[in-house]
């Protein structure tokens, strides 16, 4: 079915401000949707309250309302603009809820407006806990024993029936907010009360805890005639119990045999059919690790954080395709932009793995509780692509900007095996590193699996890294060097572990993300690196594109994962930088590792390298791209931190020089500058140790403000009132 010609003017609702669980990915999805509509010549009215987005750019829509996302505002805009349709499903939970309210109140009908994308029935079937359960039961899909209750007494009664622990999930909330796991009646009372309070319809779901099962996700797309495909499968490193937004995720699934994979894939297709979704949908499953038993956890009938990840992991533009479906097209009519030859009606197949690693804000809040559970705490994420899990996790960690370039977390080194063993029982943002330390301390994969329920597949792979580091520490040979590169170690990390200077070299082989594992020739300028030696046939696919380039090249650095103080606004500016350079006749190369962004859409720049923003990774790209210059000023602190290294390697930095940047960021140099210019400022000292800090504090007298160099958004800043405050703070700071 081709384009629905009756659609002339569409209203699109954005997702509003960035909150945990609803971040930049909706700007990415929204921007794709607007472009897809523009291509068709449809007039667009956009409502979004978040101005720090690409989608609210003038060129993106015909009319843009930067207004609060409330029912009355949206109704008023509809009355003024008179669109003939409204698109649900691309504005996150906020947009979806608004569309549903507009539909249910009869407002859309009375104004003759079509709701495109997910219908109210679909939304209800997926979001209303009871209707979801009934729908799943009607098509024979197993769900976790659960009951919808509206008061604490009801929660107690049901928990007594199914036994503790139970999970509480409030209805119609985002990122699992207000929910949690209750191990006993006391905890349930507390969590249920909060949950009921935060749910807009004062309803919670109490369900049996299946903590320890594998958590598997499928991204599915269906069109109006019922064609349905799965875009991507994903497996969580952390088992059920930890919000998928807080979990390390690998795509595709790796521990499922074809029988289990097809069982869940078929289930996902049956679910999307039963819900009648037209567009994208995310299905989450729990799979018992010891049998074929599974349960449907949740379904999101809209584009989501997972669909952004799936799009970047596969190269399949879910938001764009979902939009085309909403306006009438079927999957076999929508061309696959990656190959140009095939259509959207196919399933991407990967010849690599993609790993997502969450970015938490605990570094901003020194005293925050670091425990993870059913409520999402991550503010952002990075993704990495490689041909092994080992290299992918190494790339993800060093790109997450947590001051690590391997999985060794220094503050764990001096703990005993027993202390580490105890730490395995609690889940925090540092879980991966605790597991790694446990393996280093010879706690077996079997025991760790017993305690954490993390699948042994992942543990054996981490063990490979432990074994490698042990071997490396005994001395470096060329074979060991190559092995290290293939496992994802930087030269600097190799040198640190073996204590020798690296004298070998191996150039990375850049590979294309093409949705089809090389089956069709693709023109996507979307690359990641692996290491393949010349003799093993190693081929660098980026070189051909570089050879053909006619224009001067400029590299733009992205801003990495979203965190407090470095949000979507940096993506906004890097994307605009790319566009402006393109207009000025440059060939623009972007390097970034954040899957939630517009900058990592493969058609934003001329070439995209999905790589960590670290000295070695960036320099490797510069070596082959040979740009006339590099722009760091739009990549936030992430790019700024690289300036010095780039300048030392004679890379031409366009804009403010490395030296000037250092002068502004380095507390001591900045101090000197102010002194020189006779500008008044609070008295301060740069300190490196606890003793120096105490000394300085005594000199300026309490209270004192403590803040590290090269940070933004007040990261790790505190006010100390006593020596004890300083000692505690310095201990935390020096250990990270």
């Amino acid at each position: 079915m081709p384009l629905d010609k009756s659609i002339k003017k569409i209203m699109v609702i954005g997702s509003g401000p960035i909150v945990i669980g609803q971040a930049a990915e909706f700007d990415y999805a929204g921007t794709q949707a607007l472009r897809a509509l523009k291509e068709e010549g449809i007039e667009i009215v956009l409502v979004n309250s978040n101005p720090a987005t690409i989608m609210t750019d003038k060129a993106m829509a015909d009319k843009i309302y930067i207004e609060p996302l409330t029912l009355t505002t949206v109704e008023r805009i509809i009355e003024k603009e008179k669109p003939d349709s409204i698109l649900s499903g691309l504005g996150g939970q906020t947009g979806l809820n608004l569309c549903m309210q507009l539909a249910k109140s009869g407002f859309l009908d009375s104004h003759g407006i079509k709701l495109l994308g997910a219908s109210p029935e679909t939304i209800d079937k997926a979001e209303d806990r009871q209707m979801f359960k009934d729908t799943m039961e009607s098509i024979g899909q197993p769900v976790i024993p659960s009951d919808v209750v509206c008061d604490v007494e009801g929660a107690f009664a049901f928990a007594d029936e199914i036994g503790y622990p139970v999970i509480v999930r409030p209805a119609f909330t985002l990122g699992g907010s207000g929910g949690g796991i209750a191990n006993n009646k006391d905890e349930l009372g507390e969590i249920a009360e909060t949950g009921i309070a935060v749910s807009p319809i004062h309803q919670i779901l109490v369900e049996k805890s299946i903590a320890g099962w594998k958590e598997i996700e499928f991204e599915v797309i269906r069109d109006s005639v019922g064609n349905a495909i799965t875009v991507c499968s994903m497996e969580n490193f952390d088992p059920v119990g930890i919000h998928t937004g807080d979990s390390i995720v690998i795509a595709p699934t790796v521990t499922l045999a074809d029988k289990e994979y097809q069982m869940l894939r078929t289930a996902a297709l049956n679910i999307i059919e039963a819900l009648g979704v037209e567009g994208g949908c995310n299905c989450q499953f729990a799979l018992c690790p010891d049998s074929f038993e599974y349960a449907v956890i949740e379904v999101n009938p809209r584009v989501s954080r997972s669909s952004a990840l799936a799009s970047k992991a596969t190269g399949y533009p879910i938001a764009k395709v979902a939009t085309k479906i909403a306006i009438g097209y079927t999957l076999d009519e929508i061309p696959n932009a990656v190959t140009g030859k095939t259509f959207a009606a196919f399933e991407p197949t990967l010849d690599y793995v993609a790993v997502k690693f969450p970015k938490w804000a605990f570094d901003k809040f020194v005293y925050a509780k670091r425990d993870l559970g059913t409520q999402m705490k991550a503010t952002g994420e990075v993704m990495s692509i490689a041909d092994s899990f080992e290299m992918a996790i190494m790339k993800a960690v060093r790109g997450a900007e947590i001051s690590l370039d391997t999985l060794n977390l220094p503050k764990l080194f001096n703990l005993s095996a027993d202390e580490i063993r105890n730490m395995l029982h609690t889940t925090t943002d540092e879980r991966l590193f605790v597991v790694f330390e446990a393996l280093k301390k010879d706690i077996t994969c079997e025991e760790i699996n017993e305690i954490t329920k993390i699948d042994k597949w992942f543990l054996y792979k981490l063990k490979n890294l432990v074994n490698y580091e042990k071997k490396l520490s005994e001395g470096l040979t060329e074979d060991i060097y190559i092995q290290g590169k293939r496992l994802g170690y930087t030269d600097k990390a190799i040198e640190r572990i073996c204590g020798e200077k690296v004298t070998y070299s191996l150039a990375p082989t850049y590979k294309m993300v093409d949705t089809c594992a090389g089956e069709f020739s693709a023109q996507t300028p979307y690359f990641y690196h692996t290491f393949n030696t010349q003799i093993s046939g190693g081929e660098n696919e980026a070189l051909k594109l570089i050879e053909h380039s006619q224009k001067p090249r400029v590299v733009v650095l992205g801003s990495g994962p979203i965190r407090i103080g470095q949000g979507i606004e940096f993506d906004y500016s890097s994307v605009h930088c790319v566009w402006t350079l393109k207009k000025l006749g440059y060939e623009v190369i972007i390097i970034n590792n954040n899957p939630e962004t517009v900058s990592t859409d493969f058609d934003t720049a001329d070439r995209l390298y999905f790589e960590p923003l670290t000295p070695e990774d960036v320099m490797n790209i510069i070596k082959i791209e040979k740009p006339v210059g590099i722009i760091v000023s739009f990549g936030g602190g992430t790019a700024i931190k690289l300036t010095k290294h780039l300048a030392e390697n004679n890379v031409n930095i366009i804009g403010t020089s490395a030296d000037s940047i250092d002068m502004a960021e380095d507390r001591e140099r900045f101090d000197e500058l102010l002194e020189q210019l006779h500008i008044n400022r609070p008295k301060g000292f740069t300190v490196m140790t606890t003793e120096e800090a105490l000394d300085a504090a005594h000199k300026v007298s309490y209270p004192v403000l403590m803040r590290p160099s090269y940070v933004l958004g007040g990261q790790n800043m505190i006010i100390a009132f006593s020596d004890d405050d300083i000692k505690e703070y310095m201990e935390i700071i020096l250990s990270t």
Partner: protein
Amino acid sequence: MSDKAYLILENGKVFEGKSFGAKGTVIAEVVFATGMTGYLETLTDKSYYGQMVVQTFPLIGNYGIIRSDFESKNIHMSAYIVNQWCEEPSNFRSGGNLDAFLMEQQIVGLYDIDTRALVRIIRENGVMNGMITNSLNDIDFSKISGYKVQNAVSSVSAKEAYTVKEDNAKYKVALMDFGLKDNIVRELVKRGCEVTVLPYNTSADEIIKLSPDGIMLSNGPGDPAENVEIIECLKKLTQTKIPMFGICLGHQLLALANGCKTSKLKYGHRGANQPVKDLTTGRVYITSQNHGYAVESNSIDESIADEVFVNVNDSTCEGITYKNAPVFTVQFHPEACGGPKDTSFLFDRFIKMMGVSDNAVR
């Protein structure tokens, strides 16, 4: 540390990798398979006879060896090429790893090469022959380029007829084994069929004598046009009006028996993500495929048959329905394993055909 091993392509390109499984020298046609899961089904698929298979997904063997997932008892391909194989698999059904299994089956394995680079060569140049060996001395290129997959069907077909059934089977199906995947049998038995698997050279008269309610033509390896005798047999069987359902090679052979032509694709379809469109309904299904040859669409005589399925990617023929008899065939694998089950309803269609046909036992 593993021994060095080399893959030498007939165009002269050499990949140095490492050896796993059995050691030795082997020459075969190099093809690539794009499924991300399903390596056990791929390894035990008889349609790969005479070929060495390179997996595009880099991590193979993750869930170990699960014998109940096999599509035949043994490996029939000539060699297996992966980027990395998993030493420590993890799955509740896993029994052993890939290396040990290839060793047990005496199949040569090669790993640690740039598999994507290899796939790109095959994609650009078409399927070509290759040799895996442990030494680069005395390479006879004429031997490599002269290799041809031959007598494929006779090598993998059952030597004797056998019957598989459960109690209260409703329909008798004669299944011609050209190199069948066991799941074809399972899908039929599951739907109440008594399945008699017949060697490829069973004559039409013998089959008719069994008075089956339906005839199933299996998948299999090699160049379809080579199987002259089978094609003759199928010509006779089409006259009987017994319901017939063909898959993959079975589809090609029946098309040849009805005057169509087949030809070799540049690099074939081997994967679990192939989109196929049903021209009668407009619906698109994702299918599992493994074939190097295809029926030429323009060779189908419209007076006797219709092309009803086409590949969405390259428009090649994916299915034919015949007009004068209850007969239909598909190029893809509705029995899946590995791959999606989206078209398993075709088995129901076959069962329904037998239900309305006169021969059915009721």
